[in-house]
């Protein structure tokens, strides 16, 4: 999937916000264009003015957990001393997600504005733009944008390329990499907001969250809340993959239904059976159950799912769900930072059992063990990587229950054993 080609075809039901401005085919927005369109980032009257406005907006983090951004900034600001650091997190290690790289490529200055705003809010002296090295266009665009700023800001600005890997964007891994060039999560009792980059309090915030904050600083929290159909307000970037006419990155209002989103993408090109929501850290659901459910973190949580990083991975009804689940858990096992026993051995054992089941040659207790391990592994890693794999597997065991049982008996209803791409 090429982000650019796909973005050029995207349409939205509301005016675009993060992706407003020149057509996507025109590429990155320069600093001059950015200022001509949006004006300078307003000078704020310090943290006392910024943080309450972000809190009132209801803006939630876009990296995966959906933690309230205003509350996060406040907790860092309360601990902040000289030397605090903001990290704009654009590692985007999620294999199927493309929304962060698209944003960094097309609207780099909105990301920088958001980072500068956060720095002002928490009293930071440095902004590090942390971009996944595999996202070439995003790296080039953000580098050019950093150079265009020319060091005129009060906050020191630098770009660091994140090493390739699923976990390199996890907040303790980010800090570990910036401190010691080792992008593995750490399990010290102190969190980044207490002791992060060079031991200073550090705010690690997803690039989309920051870009949204930069718009709130300009247009206000009431404007932000104007968008949204339901309980969660605002717009969100999502990545749609699978059998639809134009897969890719879209900006949606929170609360539109899956049916509306699929219509935005030009409609299905095959029968869609299931959907992976939220990314490899997310969960499977049946499209029949979810077709009219609002794409709103609150509604999804009530349905036992999470909005996560906004990945909507649609799976062809003809594809084998056992094999599709195996493929993802296999990837998660391979992406383990290999530091914690339950993650190394647990994910490895899950992947091996799934491989046997996928191939319809299971051991007698494979399915039983998968259910037990997926419950047992939760909360037992230095980071949440094993939890994510376990949640994904748990949802797969539920949604594809009939298929798993068939595979345990040595049969697959899908003649081709095709795994399907989500």
């Amino acid at each position, binding site marked *: 999937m090429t982000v650019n080609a796909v973005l050029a075809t995207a349409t939205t039901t509301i005016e675009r916000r993060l992706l407003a401005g020149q057509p996507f085919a025109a590429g990155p927005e320069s600093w001059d264009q950015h200022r001509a369109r949006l004006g300078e980032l307003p000078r704020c009257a310090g943290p006392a003015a910024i943080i309450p406005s972000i809190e009132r907006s209801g803006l939630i983090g876009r990296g995966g957990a959906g933690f309230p951004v205003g509350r*996060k900034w406040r907790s860092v600001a309360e601990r902040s001393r000289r030397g605090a650091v903001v990290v704009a997190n654009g590692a985007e290690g999620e294999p199927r997600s493309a929304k962060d790289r698209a944003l960094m490529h097309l609207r780099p200055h909105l990301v920088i504005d958001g980072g500068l705003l956060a720095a002002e809010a928490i009293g930071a002296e440095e902004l590090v733009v942390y971009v996944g090295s595999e996202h070439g266009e995003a790296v080039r665009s953000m580098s050019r944008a950093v150079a265009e700023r020319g060091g005129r800001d009060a906050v020191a600005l630098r770009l660091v390329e994140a090493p390739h890997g699923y976990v390199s964007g996890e907040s303790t891994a980010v800090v570990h990499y910036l401190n010691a060039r080792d992008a593995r999560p750490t399990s010290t009792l102190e969190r980044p907001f207490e002791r992060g980059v060079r031991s200073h309090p550090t705010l690690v915030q997803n690039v989309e969250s920051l870009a949204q904050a930069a718009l709130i600083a300009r247009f206000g929290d009431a404007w932000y809340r104007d968008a949204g159909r339901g309980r969660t307000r605002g717009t969100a970037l999502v990545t749609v993959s699978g059998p639809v006419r134009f897969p890719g990155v879209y900006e949606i209002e929170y609360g539109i239904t899956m049916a509306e989103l699929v219509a935005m993408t030009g409609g299905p090109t095959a029968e869609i059976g299931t959907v992976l929501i939220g990314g490899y850290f997310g*969960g499977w659901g049946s499209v029949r159950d979810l077709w009219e459910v609002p794409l709103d973190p609150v509604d999804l949580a009530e349905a036992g799912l*999470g909005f996560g990083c906004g990945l909507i991975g649609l799976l062809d009804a003809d594809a084998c769900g056992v094999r599709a689940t195996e493929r993802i858990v296999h990837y998660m096992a391979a992406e383990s930072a290999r530091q914690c026993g*339950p993650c190394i051995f647990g994910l490895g054992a899950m992947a091996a059992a799934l491989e046997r089941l996928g191939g319809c040659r299971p051991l007698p207790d494979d399915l039983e063990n998968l259910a037990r391990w997926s419950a047992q592994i939760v909360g037992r890693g230095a980071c*949440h990587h094993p939890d994510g794999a376990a949640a994904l597997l748990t949802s797969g065991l539920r949604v594809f229950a009939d298929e798993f049982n068939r595979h345990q008996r040595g049969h697959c209803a899908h003649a081709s054993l095709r795994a399907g791409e989500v």
Partner: protein
Amino acid sequence: MAASLRVDRARCEGYGMCAELLPEAIELDDWGYPIVRDGVLPEHLRALAERAVEVCPVLALRLVSPERMRSTLHSRSLAPHTALRSHGGG
């Protein structure tokens, strides 16, 4: 003061001595790594828990106050909702 057991997961190598000393609070998974029972450690296990902390060959076991356990805002910043729930929210 009430306390909870916490395992440094990256440090733990699965020696299993903690589970031998404290089967009431710690069991081992299929690969020999500890599963700590949720919640505050009962006071009558305190002395054994301190002993378990001391004998861990890689110093991966700690006794921490419950306040400290809750102070993990950023560790959750990438977690899915399911993981948050299983950790008891906060």
